[in-house]
């Protein structure tokens, strides 16, 4: 296949699908398989760009999460179980915190429960990390619908402002040594904050002038009436979504409030976005194409999630006192999750810095 960068949204949807699969199981074997699947795809398809080098950090974070989870269960354990691994002395606590047990016997249920839970969290973290590693975050922002373009630009600008701010703090801190160092506390802080803020303000104004001169925010041809209509659609969509989500989460609310309102909200919001986007006369330079490989990648994520979610509960949520089993459907789910490593075009490996 000709090397090209896959659409960032495709990677995100695939990764979220895997994450959804991971979140609906505590089966350690299945979770480890999902983690391995994510790692395999990352290794096969990552680039050499700066954001792609961060996957290692996600691995450390995931390991830390598992460790903390298990430790937590050991320290505040107290799940009764027949098998006691280690008998630790229990530290007596005052009655105020009755129900919390500090140390005491460490049971198999404690350790395994912590391990399963930790693994699930670790798998979700790694899936998100994989998306972040595979997809250029800035290109993702560029693929936002036209109506959200302004917001996307604001995010990109603020992202690039952070290194500048750090640079200016460093510069001013160094300069501070060139004058006396007498001030303490607030005075000292002020000596750094005032020049840095002045610098940041100058830069912002400068950038704003530059963007203005380059045509940012040239208004489209929409009339006041069209603009109001768009606003109305977006607002109605938002309200519909809020009601729908409330209906979904509150079990006592009438069911009619749940899915129908979510659907209505989404529909209104989409109409609003399309109508807002239509009046934007802006084009995009080299947009990422959406082709078969993107579709397959997304389908893999969705299929993996669906297969795990509909699998036998005995498999996805094994009890703590038997060896967890894996079934054919969940194995197929993991295998589908790995498919993007082979069917997507390889990335363009070129130094971007």
């Amino acid at each position: 296949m000709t090397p090209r960068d896959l659409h960032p949204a495709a990677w995100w949807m695939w990764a979220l699908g895997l994450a959804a699969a991971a979140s609906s199981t505590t089966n350690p074997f299945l979770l480890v398989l999902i983690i391995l699947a994510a790692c395999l795809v990352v290794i096969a398809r990552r680039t050499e760009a700066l954001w792609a080098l961060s996957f290692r950090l996600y691995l450390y974070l995931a390991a830390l999460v598992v460790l903390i989870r298990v430790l937590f269960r050991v320290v505040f354990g107290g799940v009764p179980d027949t098998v006691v691994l280690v008998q630790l002395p229990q530290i007596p606590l005052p009655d105020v915190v009755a129900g919390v047990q500090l140390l005491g016997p460490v049971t198999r249920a404690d350790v395994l429960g912590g391990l399963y839970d930790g693994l699930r969290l670790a798998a979700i973290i790694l899936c998100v990390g994989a998306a972040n590693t595979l997809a250029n975050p800035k290109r993702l922002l560029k693929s936002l619908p036209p109506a959200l373009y302004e917001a996307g630009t604001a995010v990109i600008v603020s992202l690039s402002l952070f290194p500048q701010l750090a640079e200016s703090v460093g510069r001013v801190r160094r300069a501070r040594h060139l004058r006396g160092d007498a001030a303490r506390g607030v005075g000292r802080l002020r000596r750094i904050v005032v020049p840095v803020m002045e610098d940041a303000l100058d830069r912002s104004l400068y950038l704003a002038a530059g963007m203005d001169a380059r045509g940012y925010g040239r208004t489209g041809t929409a009339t006041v009436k069209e603009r109001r209509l768009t606003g109305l659609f977006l607002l109605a969509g938002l309200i519909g979504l809020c009601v729908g989500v409330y209906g979904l989460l509150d079990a006592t609310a009438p069911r009619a409030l749940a899915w129908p309102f979510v659907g209505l909200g989404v529909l209104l919001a989409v109409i609003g976005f399309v109508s807002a986007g239509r009046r934007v006369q802006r084009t995009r330079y080299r947009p990422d194409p959406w082709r078969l490989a993107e579709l397959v990648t997304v389908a893999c994520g969705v299929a993996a999630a669906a297969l795990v979610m509909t699998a036998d509960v005995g498999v996805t949520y094994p009890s703590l006192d038997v060896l967890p089993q894996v079934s054919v459907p969940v194995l197929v789910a993991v295998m589908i999750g790995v498919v993007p490593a082979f069917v997507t075009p390889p990335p363009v490996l070129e130094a971007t810095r």
Partner: protein
Amino acid sequence: MIELTGVTFTHDGAPAPVLRDVNVRIDEGELVLVAGRTGSGKSTLLGTLNGLTPHFTGGTMSGQVVVDGRSVRDHTPRELADLVGYVGQDPLAGFVTDVVEDELAYGMEQLGIDPQTMRRRVEETLDLLGIADLRRRALRTLSGGQQQRVAVGSVLTMHPRVLVLDEPTSALDPTAAEEVLSTLARLVDDLGLTVVLAEHRMERVIPFADRLVVVEDGSVRSGDPRDLLRDAPVAPPLVELGRLLAWDPLPLSVREARRAARGIDLPAPTEHPEPSAVPLLTARGITVTYGSKVAVREVDLDVPAGRVVTLMGRNGSGKSSLLWAIQGSGKRASGRVDVDGVDPKGSSPAQARALVGLVPQTAADLLYLESVALECAAADQQADAAAGTCRDLLDRFAPGVPDDRHPRDLSEGQRLALVLAIVLTSSPRVVALDEPTRGLDYPGKERLAEVLRHLAAEGHGVVLATHDVEFVAEVADDAVVMAEGEVVSRGAAAHVLAESPAFAPQVTKVLGPDWLTVGSVAEALA
């Protein structure tokens, strides 16, 4: 192409207008240089061409500015974006995206140009500016000259008819400035673009300019450079030389001046007693590293009392790192510094300041109080100096700076003087300055040169990093040229400057290695 009729502009709350009854006509395909002293209203004038003044800056404008038939009064800058390309002073601060290619496409995306055309124009512009190999590079990793060319490219893709640039080469070393200017000259030749640019270092632009616009206290004169330069308040050394020797017509390029100088008979240059060379600061084997990058590699430096030493070299050749390292507050991987038998690195910050005082590149970083008086008082207190020390120093360097003025409202030269005064309040033995001539006009530089000569005469050692060769010719006794963190040549400034084609000042190019400045010619003739 551009027509300003009776333009008067007043900032909000200002007592007097910045521009007064300006009438200028610029034809298509001209390269126009806008010159004038700092704060004379050059940037304001440039801003009126695309509506940043007054639409963005605020203020009151009367009169009419018409660009290609479109009135700036009725159009905002963003509506003029397809007609006027505007490049500000600091290219890095004006970038919206982070990769070269995206930056070139940004303006076109705003204009809604179709993707095919966009793709074609980006490729054409990459080639036109010679930056095709940089297309995927992150903007922050580019050198100053490359950044400036990308900034020019990012407005060129919109196919404007007019290009407006505010000090495009002031932060660049001579070679990078040359790159940018020859690119601009080519755009005028090949595309028939109208280019309007403001620049302090006129010597770089004058040979290319078709028209000169001189801004002086709000009034504006425009015309042929040769006529206007006879009495313009700012003039490059070449023109000063022409004025001194009463050459007619005035030479605008080195080649013209050489022809005029043929057969001229000058007396031998006046001999000046060599200032003493008692070593004051000796640095040996200075190495500065940032991670795996070596910024300065085993450099030796001597700064004798009573002499001015300049560090020269490309942007990023390690000049600043060396200054910070010898001051003691910067990084130093190895090597030692000796000032009066003490190494500033090991001593307390207060002690280090009394040994070497450093004025950093962005001098304003040292200022954080609301008024000049407060800054001076704080400096006295921090240095344990008698009250009024700093103010006296300031009055020596820049007389008449009002006590209640906010430091940010000072002119570039006054602000530099204030920071220099603050640094000198600790009465350091050696004074180090990093790029002090940034943003200074010719009279401002002359003033600074005088101050530095005085400091040297009082027995201070002075060391400065700069790539302003004309300033070096004016002030330096010794010169050290650095490249890639190493010293490539050093010696008496006159020899070092005369030897190098890139660093030779204009007067040397015309009259030969015996002459560095117009001042020395005037002195010999007197």
